[in-house]
């Protein structure tokens, strides 16, 4: 065997093209990893801003190992030595094992270089505690596993396929696992959004997706690289399946156990295949209709011909306390008991629970099953009797509000637990989930047990492994998290992202400063409220609850949270922002603008009052200079402070006048 190994490595000397090919690959690995290191040291970036860089080139790995293995194992065939090797049944497998030793050795060497450089980035940015195991797991799943699959496939192709067929298969493999293959399911499923005509082949596509998904998206700092159970099962399926098929070529053919070993591996592959098909909560930001960031729009805007109705029905009772037990594994598993008070419910208890969670049972305090019906997000428990406690058991997926092995993001504004009454969840005007939940101003007592594989935190205090406290709507966040007390607020942020703790300090301070300048009497960030950073899962929004704030952008945007969405105020918002943040820049820009003509102003004012989207678009594209100049004239007339206060009051009000109407109407008092 030692001699065979020596011969195999000697091939690299004789065939310089092989050696150069390997050298080019190893140089690429070192260069990409080295650039990440340089990127971090030179620009001062940390975390995923650096680590996401080389992920998009990961297709290089399996491509290289497939070609190398195929070429090395095809050599005996090319030299017409196959028959003589196979003639010695007791030793032929040794030739193939020896040939496999070369790509295996290269893989080990390249992977060590890759991992070493990645870990250097992790340690050098002082994130070992947070990212060490995450980066190692991602390297195994996204780099090592696809390379092993490629080596096994190369072995099979070398034994079974002729040269042309072999290379055709290699090209097909690289296309299928690469980033461009999404064209195929995209053509099938996104050619139309008409549900009746859609063919969703993404689940099949996922079975071939052995590289890191969503490579053009920024990595979520809370979630990290997608390492879901489903992806491990897919990688395991291919490795076990290909190992089972290739085992006869690398084991002594006279050994009787070979067939059993092969059959066992194929059985394991079948089990892993089934596991990969099991429903699970995953982060997918590709173009599939049910992608994480598009699932809600697909459901609420386009379910069949009639979109689901949005109801607003008062409950007729109050939930005094919640006793909840959550478990995050492949998806969220929940047992939620609600203690009812002030009960005047009539013949039914009405609750709202996101439609992605499938209820398995509803029972009373004695454990007796209660009759219930489900219509989308709305659950009706039929009972004329008064119940002190109702218990719901359910499991499922909340779309972008993920709960799985690697991440938990269950914001309080989202009904991941049954909320009293029927509450509208979808805003038909903005086509977004409504993020300000109606709480009726009544907090409840919560006692929550959260079983997760990642550290979980909440706005509720944790005592003895349970989150216990009084809240309007608790939030649970788990994954690559950190928590810090900043300016009197418990801030939950994600250090592997681009927003460090200092960022929140600066933004909270700027919010307070803006609020003072515009005369805000009631801040959006109430005293002691918990602050949560955006998780970067897609569709991040700023949301405000009485005791929690979800920051998706900076202090200025927070100042205008709650402002009514009006299409004809956008330019004024920009000018207002410039005056608040950069008054000097605004002065210099506006003083160079020409004085607007009266007829031009009148015409734009007419356009801006149009309810028609097209006309507003025309207005938007032509009114910039006029709005800025009018705003600047107002500042000169009335002074910065007065204009800031007046404009803020106008922007927060339901005043029907357009921004040009506001700017040309002189000083006035606007009621918010």
């Amino acid at each position, binding site marked *: 065997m030692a001699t065979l190994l020596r011969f195999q490595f000697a091939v690299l000397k004789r065939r310089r093209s092989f050696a150069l090919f390997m050298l080019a690959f190893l140089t690429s690995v070192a260069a990409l990893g080295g650039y990440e290191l340089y*990127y971090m040291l*030179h*620009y*001062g*970036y940390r975390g995923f*801003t650096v680590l*996401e*860089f080389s992920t*998009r080139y990961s297709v290089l790995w399996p491509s290289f190992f497939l070609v190398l293995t195929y070429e090395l194992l095809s050599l005996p065939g090319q030299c017409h030595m196959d028959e003589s090797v196979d003639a010695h049944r007791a030793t032929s497998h040794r030739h193939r094992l020896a040939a496999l030793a070369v790509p295996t050795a290269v893989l080990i060497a390249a992977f060590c270089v890759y991992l070493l450089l990645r870990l250097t980035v992790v340690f050098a940015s002082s994130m070992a505690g947070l990212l060490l195991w995450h980066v190692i797991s991602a390297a195994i799943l996204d780099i090592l596993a696809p390379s092993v699959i490629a080596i096994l496939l190369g072995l099979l192709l070398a034994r079974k396929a002729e040269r042309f067929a072999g290379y055709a298969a290699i090209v097909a493999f690289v296309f299928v696992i690469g980033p461009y293959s999404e*064209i195929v399911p*995209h*053509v099938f499923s*996104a*050619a*139309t*959004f008409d549900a009746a005509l859609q063919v969703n082949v993404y689940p099949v596509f996922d079975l071939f997706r052995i590289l890191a998904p969503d490579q*053009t*998206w*920024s990595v979520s700092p809370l979630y990290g690289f997608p390492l879901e159970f489903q992806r491990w099962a897919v990688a395991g399926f291919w490795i076990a399946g290909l190992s089972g098929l290739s085992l006869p070529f690398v084991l002594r053919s006279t050994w009787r156990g070979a067939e059993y070993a092969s059959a066992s591996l194929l059985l394991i592959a079948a089990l892993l295949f089934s596991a990969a098909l099991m429903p699970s909560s995953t982060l997918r*930001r590709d173009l599939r209709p049910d992608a994480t*960031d*598009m699932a809600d*729009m697909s459901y609420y*805007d386009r379910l069949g011909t009639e979109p689901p109705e949005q109801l607003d029905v008062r409950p007729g009772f109050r939930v005094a306390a919640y006793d909840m037990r959550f478990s995050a594994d492949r998806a969220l598993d929940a047992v939620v008991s609600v203690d009812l008070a002030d009960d005047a419910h009539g013949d039914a208890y009405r609750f709202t629970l996101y439609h992605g969670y499938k209820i398995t049972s509803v029972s009373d305090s004695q454990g007796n099953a209660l009759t219930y019906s489900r219509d989308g997000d709305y659950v009706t428990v039929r009972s004329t009797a008064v119940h002190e406690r109702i218990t719901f058991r359910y499991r499922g997926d909340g779309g972008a509000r993920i709960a799985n092995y690697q991440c938990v993001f269950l914001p309080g504004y989202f009904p991941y637990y049954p909320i009293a009454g029927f509450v509208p969840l979808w805003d038909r005007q*903005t*086509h977004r989930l409504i993020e300000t939940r109606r709480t009726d101003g009544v907090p409840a007592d919560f006692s929550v047990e959260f079983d997760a594989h990642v550290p979980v935190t909440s706005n509720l205090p944790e005592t003895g492994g349970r989150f216990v406290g009084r809240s309007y709507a608790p939030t649970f966040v788990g994954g690559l998290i950190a928590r810090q007390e900043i300016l009197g607020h418990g801030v939950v942020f994600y250090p592997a992202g*681009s*927003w*460090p703790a200092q*960022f929140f300090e600066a933004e909270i301070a700027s919010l307070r400063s803006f609020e003072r300048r515009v005369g805000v009497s009631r801040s959006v960030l109430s005293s002691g409220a918990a602050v949560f950073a955006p998780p970067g899962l*897609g*569709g*991040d*929004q*700023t949301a405000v609850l009485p005791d929690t704030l979800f920051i*998706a*952008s*900076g202090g*200025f*945007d927070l100042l205008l949270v709650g402002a009514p*969405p009006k*299409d004809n105020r*956008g330019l004024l918002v*920009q000018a207002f*922002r*410039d005056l608040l*943040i*950069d008054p*000097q*820049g605004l002065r*210099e*820009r506006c003083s160079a603008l020409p004085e607007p003509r009266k007829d031009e102003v009148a015409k734009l004012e007419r356009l801006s009052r149009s309810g028609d*989207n*097209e006309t*507003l*678009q025309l207005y*938007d*594209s032509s009114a*910039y200079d006029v709005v800025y100049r009018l705003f600047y004239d107002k500042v000169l007339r009335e002074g910065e402070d007065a204009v800031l206060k007046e404009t803020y009051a106008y922007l927060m009000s339901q005043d029907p006048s357009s921004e040009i109407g506001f700017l040309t109407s002189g000083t006035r008092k606007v009621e918010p």
Partner: protein
Amino acid sequence: MKRVASFAVALSLIVVFAAPTFAQAASLRLILEANQTSAWSGALGNYKNANQKVFNATSSARDVYGTLQYAAPGGGWVTQQKLTVHPSNTAQGTTVLQTTAGDWRVGLDPVGFLTKDVYATNTLTAW
């Protein structure tokens, strides 16, 4: 010669001091015509914050994706936000903030593979 030198000095001062002032905020509008299958804007450079506003015309045959991308100095384009907008609708995305000033661009892509017949605009504002 002196005049040329004075002009050069004055120009340099304008570039050094005035340009950053004017670079405080910038905006561009990307237009997707009905015969295009997708479009990307040029980049607005050296800004920390940006937002996109996507308009899809009533005459459009289908939804459109508006994409906002950011490239940190030395890095590649990375998607930060994607909005899906129905015909006859306008969507304003949340402001995306970065701690390092970099390049921003927006894209428009009708839903579906190589589909056309969408008139849409995406306005990128960066500051």
